């Protein structure tokens, strides 16, 4: 019989801010995966390239998650697979398997894709598979297709760029140099489209610049056209490295503008953007006031309700905690497994100013059995925070939700206020993979 293990307190399920260490407040070891699945995976991200097809080459167990991701987003017709079996490992015909398998699949597709993303796996690294040769053969065989070298290699997550960073870099590999358009700007490396109302979108568009990002590209040619932009903006931390590489390759400018919860940083970012655009730096006071107003209003709505934040909702959970706390919110818990460099300053502030705030891991084994919520109402920002607190009052966003700037802060405050007033079915919502991916997700 299944039984809930009782209300025993387990070690390593929480540490006070005063005791927490940067950057890893918790031991590493075995890991648990909570059923919050809203963050995008490499299938979701890869599907952003219009008119593309994905081919995964890996063991069947590894294929399962990606095949069903595609199926759940209604895109099973855009993903095919080549299963590696034991015989291939023993025979060492890994390169032929990719070449022949990909060729076979391409031949069977009802329509020729403009791009094929081939995802090789951990085992290809260990077998020293000669991937450059594989791609050279495929490119010669199918000169009309752009082959994109992608990776499903989580074993390499501590070996250079993480799989997430790699994916966001490779996503733009087919872009080739084009004549420069001095009025064209891109946002690169984000999964979700940046909110039209954000300061970022308004500043660029209102000054006569076109603003493109992959989530809005409807055709392959439109997507290739991103190469003409003079400036690339990246806003998501793991997008930065890829954006830098792309910009260098195509001779574009690049500016990194993360979604910050610090007003000074926000002002500096937008001043820098204005500089790149050659326009006057925006007057931030109206935006700032609106953000403050929204935050204060939300704080009043919550009226002291505990707030828990996780790293899946926003990329700077600790900085958000600081901002909210400074506006009178009762932030008591942050769910993360490590503290990013961008959150360092906020972490030090929280240690000093909110010493009793609890940091919780999401992946430590004890989190599997630790009690989820103690009955006190909690406003959770993020799916993992919702799950671990057992709360039905939560802000259901991932990866910053497309928000940016003061407008983003104001909107986030609005979402917090709405969440406090309207319960949601966490169980139904957080298990949907790839929140906001195209085609919707059916579960």
């Amino acid at each position, binding site marked *: 019989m299944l039984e809930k293990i009782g209300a025993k307190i387990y070690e390593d399920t929480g540490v006070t801010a005063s005791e927490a260490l940067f950057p890893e407040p918790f031991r590493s070891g075995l890991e648990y995966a909570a059923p919050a699945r809203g963050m995008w995976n490499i299938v979701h991200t890869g599907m952003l390239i219009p008119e593309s097809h994905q081919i995964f080459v890996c063991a069947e167990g590894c294929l399962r998650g990606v095949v069903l991701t595609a199926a759940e987003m209604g895109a099973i017709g855009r993903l095919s697979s080549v299963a590696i079996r034991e015989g291939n490992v023993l025979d*060492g015909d890994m390169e032929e398997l990719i070449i022949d398998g990909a060729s076979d699949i391409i031949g069977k597709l009802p329509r020729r894709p403009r791009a094929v993303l081939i995802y090789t796996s951990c085992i290809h*690294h*260990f077998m*020293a598979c*000669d991937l*450059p*040769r594989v791609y050279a053969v495929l490119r010669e065989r199918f000169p009309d297709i752009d082959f994109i070298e992608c990776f499903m290699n989580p074993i390499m997550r*501590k*070996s*250079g760029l993480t799989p997430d960073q790699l994916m966001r870099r490779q996503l733009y590999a087919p872009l080739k140099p084009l004549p420069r358009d001095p009025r064209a700007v891109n946002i690169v490396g984000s999964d979700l489209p940046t909110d039209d109302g954000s300061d970022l979108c308004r500043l660029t568009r209102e000054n006569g610049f076109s603003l493109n990002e992959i989530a809005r590209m409807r055709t392959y040619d439109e997507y290739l056209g991103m190469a003409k932009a003079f400036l690339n903006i990246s806003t998501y931390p793991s997008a930065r490295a890829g954006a830098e590489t792309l910009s260098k390759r195509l001779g574009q400018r690049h500016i990194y503008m993360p979604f910050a919860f610090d007003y000074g940083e926000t002002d500096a970012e937008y001043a820098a953007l204005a500089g790149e655009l050659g326009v006057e730096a925006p007057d931030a006071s109206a935006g700032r006031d609106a953000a403050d107003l929204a935050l204060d209003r939300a704080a009043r709505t919550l009226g002291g309700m505990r707030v828990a934040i996780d790293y899946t909702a926003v990329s700077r959970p600790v900085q958000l905690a600081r901002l909210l706390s400074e506006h009178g919110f009762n932030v008591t818990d942050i769910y993360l497994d490590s503290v990013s460099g961008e959150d360092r300053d906020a972490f030090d502030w929280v240690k000093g100013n909110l010493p009793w705030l609890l940091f919780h891991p999401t992946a430590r084994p004890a989190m599997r059995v630790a009690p989820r919520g103690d009955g006190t109402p909690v406003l959770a920002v993020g799916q993992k925070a919702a799950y671990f607190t057992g709360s039905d009052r939560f802000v259901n966003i991932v990866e910053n939700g497309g928000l940016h700037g003061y407008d983003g802060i104001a909107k986030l405050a609005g979402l917090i206020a709405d969440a406090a007033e309207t319960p949601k079915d966490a169980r139904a919502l957080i298990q949907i993979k790839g929140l906001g991916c195209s085609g919707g997700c059916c579960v």
Partner: protein
Amino acid sequence: MIQLALYGKGGIGKSTTASNISAALAAAGVRVMQIGCDPKADSTSALLGGRRAETVIDLIQKRGRDFPLEDMALEGYGGVVCVEAGGPTPGLGCAGRAITAALELLKEKGAYEKFAPDAVIYDVLGDVVCGGFSVPMRAGYAQKVFIVTSGENMAIHAGANIAMAVENFRERGYASLGGIILNRRNVKNEDEKVLELASDVGTEIVGAIDRSDTVQDAEELGKTVMEAFPDSLAAAGYRALARAVAARCGMEVEL
């Protein structure tokens, strides 16, 4: 820049041969980088006079990937840049992956540009058993493979195996066979047997090193023959070999 790889049966004298070729070339003014591709990490020990290079894998384990390129290499006798790939202890893990990871990191950190060698010598461990061990002979790495062998059957058999691998990889644009280096053990009909191997695999003996106590003596001193006994017959033999090997790779050197 020429790049060559030495393969051959374990214990046949690849590292001794590689180190002495490196030292001989270095003495003639060639800038050499010798890369040991063996978890034992002892390829360059004779060039380092007792010092031990921290292996690339050790460095990654201790410091992630964020360490200066210079930490991966020690300058040995004659200015030879010495690098050891490293790998797991016997019976564990995956040495093939270790070689691959080490060579990838060298490339990623720009070792070839930074150290700007004129000649790179890869000294690859004994029995090539999986994909990782063929990385040194791939496009972008060695252009020529030299097989070190004696007249002993096991060594010849291993040599034939390696030659077959090289032949299998021909259409991939991997390294071609540069020749056979005969490391004499004075077994019966040694020269004839190795000549036969050469003929069978479509190559030639590019040079031979006589068995001599000088080589042993130098080893006892922890040095190459070139350093310990530069005027010996053995040293002359290595010079001739180095010249021949370099010539096979398209580099004419006065030695």
